[in-house]
């Protein structure tokens, strides 16, 4: 990919910058506002060089600096009590949060977005989204052990969804499968709100011994900076190309490369094994992955987290293209690269490990005294800055926050007026219709493209309520993880909706038999310049933070993605919440669904007439309005406690969370996943409400008949309402007075939808 050698352009040095204060610079094209540019000039006491301008502009971008969200995210810290912090070994601000799960094990996890690249180039956008989050986990010193991908698309039958979804799924699959990471969960949601702006979020979990925790910092004068992994190229440079086009005249023959990065999962797989061997040998002082903003981010963050300055020589960076400028090298988002701080006496051993794995590694700089980040290029100084001003002292905005004028009308538009099916035949047909709906049907078309078995520790994956992997083969200790968000609930009430997302993920983890321990969130919203969006964001953050305080689990990290909109139309506010739980022994996990004949089916939690934002209102009537279901986190806490205790005592044989689609869908899935029918009565006098309401805090469990009394007693002691619904077994799902639904009919309804929409083999 090396282009023909272009004319070497003049280097914009610090010296030159000081001597030419009036030279116009394309800072606006790089996304900097007038006052931000002035601030850079006042920090430096001169105009920035091209390379410095590239660094500041990318590091002060919304994506890297969190400038619109910072003032709100501080609320997470305010609500985290010392008790909640007890098991936290690292939190917000590190590459990923780390929690102590016992037996000397620590687990790190994080969910991140790669939305915009995935719309432009679905396959590579999604693939590199997986790659990025995996490197974040590696940078903590952990071995990545599982991934999960919450995905959101426009309407299932929209032409653009047919372009985006297969590419995204193949991208997630190809990259994750090639890394040897089991994909254990995630979501697939369709809504018109995401047409033109799909959400591709990626979660990764890693495990390590607690003593192996690595944090990103560059301490110790004389320590060396090693860049290792892939070469640095022109891919993923994005906005900085305006500097290049200024610097280069036409006719240099240089190719423009796509702004979306291109992934190489093989290089990343080798990088994982190489990093783990380096950690194991004790050869790493500090480490940072190269993701957004590339070397600009890695060098400024490493330097500002350390105790001194840093010198970097860009001529030592191995390049993929000739004639790259300093600004381009610093901004390149070429994938599969890491930056380590290494003691001088360890460098030889470090490079030997890299050579064993055929990983390219080069010393590109060193930690020095003086507190400045100095970068040279072709022997001249092109950057000389206080690193904190790049990495942490970016602008902070107090954006206007205002509940929009349309919100009252939205809440007032209650679903009560929507025609409800009545009569046995209509209700029965509605169960099948809902089971086949794009948001409720089987996700197998997607998840069957992901390897869920690799590494041999997966004890639950889709369609289970939570993914679960074993961490310790001897003790059986493991973790469970679930991600959830019903964005329609968030649109109706961002505070309560975000708490419902938290409650659902929390409940899903508990349903599997694990004890919820920590939260990571991926906050996907529209433009922060829209006061209504900022109101949604502020409310959602407060909802999650207050909710976590009530549940006693901390938010350990996450990601904010703004500007998810097409024109002036924002996506549904989508704060995806990931909850991580721990289970002492994965052999005691609770399987999903009806796994034995003759068990008693019990519904935990109460059912109310709550249809606002429900899947039924959405699918059948295209309606969004009213209030979301009531959220009661104290009740969720009691329910989770009961579920964990019941799993530990072996009181339940199977379980399934109730969420989208209500009891009807939970019964359908429990039957199909378990491969057997059931006969049940309905827990509410109104059959429609009983079947399709989406009241929170409910879980379907099964128990052996001889243990039902113990289970009911435990529920009563825990203060959790319990209703015996019926018995498992038989070839059909028989609901109250409705004519039984044979399993094959349920199965073809549930499994047929996605293949019919997306199975179009390429002709020829």
């Amino acid at each position: 990919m090396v282009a023909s050698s272009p004319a070497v352009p003049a280097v914009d040095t610090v010296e030159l910058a000081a001597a030419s204060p009036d030279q116009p610079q394309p800072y606006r094209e790089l996304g900097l506002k007038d006052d931000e540019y002035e601030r850079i000039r006042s920090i430096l006491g001169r105009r920035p060089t091209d390379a410095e301008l590239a660094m500041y502009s990318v590091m002060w971008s919304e994506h890297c600096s969190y400038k619109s969200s910072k003032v709100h995210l501080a609320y997470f810290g305010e609500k985290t009590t010392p008790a909640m912090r007890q098991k936290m070994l690292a939190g917000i601000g590190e590459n990923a949060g780390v929690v102590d799960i016992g037996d000397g094990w620590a687990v790190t996890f994080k969910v991140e977005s790669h939305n915009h690249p995935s719309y432009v180039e679905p396959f590579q956008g999604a693939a590199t989204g997986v790659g990025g989050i995996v490197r974040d986990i590696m940078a903590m010193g952990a071995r990545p052990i599982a991934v999960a991908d919450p995905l959101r698309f426009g309407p299932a039958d929209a032409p653009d969804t047919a372009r985006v979804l297969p590419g995204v799924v193949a991208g997630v699959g190809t990259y994750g499968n090639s890394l040897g990471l089991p994909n254990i969960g995630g979501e697939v949601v369709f809504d018109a709100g995401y047409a033109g702006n799909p959400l591709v979020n990626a979660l990764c979990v890693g495990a390590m011994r607690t003593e192996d925790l690595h944090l990103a910092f560059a301490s110790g004068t004389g320590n060396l900076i090693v860049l290792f992994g892939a070469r640095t190229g022109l891919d993923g440079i994005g906005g900085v190309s305006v500097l290049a086009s200024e610097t280069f005249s036409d006719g240099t023959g240089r190719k423009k490369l796509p702004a979306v990065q291109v992934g190489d999962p093989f290089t990343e797989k080798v990088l994982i094994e190489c990093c783990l061997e380096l950690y194991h040998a004790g050869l790493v002082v500090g480490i940072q992955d190269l993701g957004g903003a590339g070397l600009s981010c890695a060098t400024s963050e490493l330097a500002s987290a350390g105790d001194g300055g840093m010198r970097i020589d860009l001529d030592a960076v191995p390049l993929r293209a000739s004639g790259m400028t300093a600004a381009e090298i610093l901004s390149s988002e070429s994938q599969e690269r890491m930056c380590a701080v290494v003691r001088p006496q360890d460098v030889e051993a470090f490079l030997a490990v890299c050579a064993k794995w055929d990983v390219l590694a080069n010393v590109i700089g060193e930690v020095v005294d003086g507190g400045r980040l100095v970068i040279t290029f072709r022997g001249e100084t092109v950057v000389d800055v206080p690193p904190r001003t790049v990495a942490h002292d970016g602008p902070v905005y107090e954006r206007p926050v205002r509940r929009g004028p349309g919100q009252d009308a939205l809440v007032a538009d209650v679903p009560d007026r929507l025609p409800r099916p009545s009569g046995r035949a209509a209700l029965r047909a509605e169960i099948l219709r809902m089971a086949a709906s794009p948001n409720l049907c089987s996700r197998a078309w997607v998840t069957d493209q992901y390897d869920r078995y690799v590494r041999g520790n997966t004890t639950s994956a889709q369609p289970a309520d939570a993914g679960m992997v074993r961490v310790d083969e001897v003790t059986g200790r493991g973790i469970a993880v679930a991600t959830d968000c019903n964005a329609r609930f968030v649109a109706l009430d961002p505070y309560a909706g975000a708490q419902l997302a938290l409650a659902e993920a929390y409940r899903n983890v508990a349903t599997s038999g694990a004890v919820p321990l920590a939260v990571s969130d991926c906050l996907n919203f529209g433009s922060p310049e829209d006061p209504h969006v900022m109101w949604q964001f502020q409310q959602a953050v407060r909802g999650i933070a207050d909710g976590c305080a009530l549940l006693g689990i901390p938010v350990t990290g996450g990601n904010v993605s703004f500007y998810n909109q097409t024109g002036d139309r924002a996506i549904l506010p989508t704060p995806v919440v990931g909850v991580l739980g721990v289970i002492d022994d994965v052999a005691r996990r609770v399987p999903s669904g009806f796994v034995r004949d003759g068990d008693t089916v019990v519904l935990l939690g109460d059912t109310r007439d709550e249809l606002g934002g429900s899947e039924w209102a959405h699918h059948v009537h295209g309606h969004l309005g009213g209030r979301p279901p009531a959220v009661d986190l104290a009740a969720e806490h009691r329910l989770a406690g009961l579920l964990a205790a019941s799993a530990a005592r072996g009181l339940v044989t199977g379980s399934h969370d109730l969420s989208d689609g209500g009891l009807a869908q939970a019964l359908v899935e429990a039957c199909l996943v378990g491969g057997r029918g059931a006969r049940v009565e309905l827990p509410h006098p109104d059959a429609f409400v009983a079947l399709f309401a989406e009241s929170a805090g409910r879980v379907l469990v099964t128990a052996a008949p001889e243990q039902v009394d113990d289970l009911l007693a435990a529920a009563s002691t825990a203060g959790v309402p319990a209703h015996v619904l019926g018995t498992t077994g038989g070839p059909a799902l028989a609901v109250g007075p409705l004519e039984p639904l044979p399993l094959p009919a349920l199965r073809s309804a549930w499994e047929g939808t996605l293949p019919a929409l997306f199975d179009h083999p390429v002709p020829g």
Partner: protein
Amino acid sequence: MRIGVITFPGTLDDVDAARAVRYAGAEPVSLWHADHDLAGVDAVVVPGGFSYGDYLRAGAIASLAPIMTEVKDAARRGMPVLGICNGFQILCEAGLLPGALARNSGLHFVCRDQRLRIESTATAWTGAATAGQEILVPLKSGEGRFVADADTVARLEGEGRVVFRYLGGNPNGALADIAGISSADGRVVGLMPHPEHAIDPLTGPSDDGLVLFTSVLGAAVG
């Protein structure tokens, strides 16, 4: 008994293969792609993954790795060799097994629990099974469609060298539903599905896959 498990850069299921060897009661021995050394093992497993990224034809580069020279020599002397998924592709590329593995007919990577029938117990890796035994093991591959010319398929069928056949639907368009085959002497076996992921019902769909690893215990070179 010591069973070698090869790791190429990009190999993924080596930990699983080693665990399966352990569960069967043998000692797993790590073998490195760049070494010309089988470390005195009694049998070799070439595990799944994407060796060297498989950006070329799957298995094409791995078949030329230094360790494969030794595997080829040992196989000629009768050492039991099992290739799983990418390992099967590598054994075909190395010429130890006939045919090739092409892109799935559905064009997608497929991960699912697959029923298989063990068609032959006259191999080093299926001797402990019963002929016609049905097993349930994971399949996970994008290039798993077994293809060969008609003569080769006829020879494999005629000589009883089709060892595993897909049941309950052909997942990838493989000729004659072939999931796995053996060398003429039955010592080298390759299959696309993953018996090493089916050694414990806790983490797999069954423990049906263990039989391959227990079979080889009685089949080492004398």
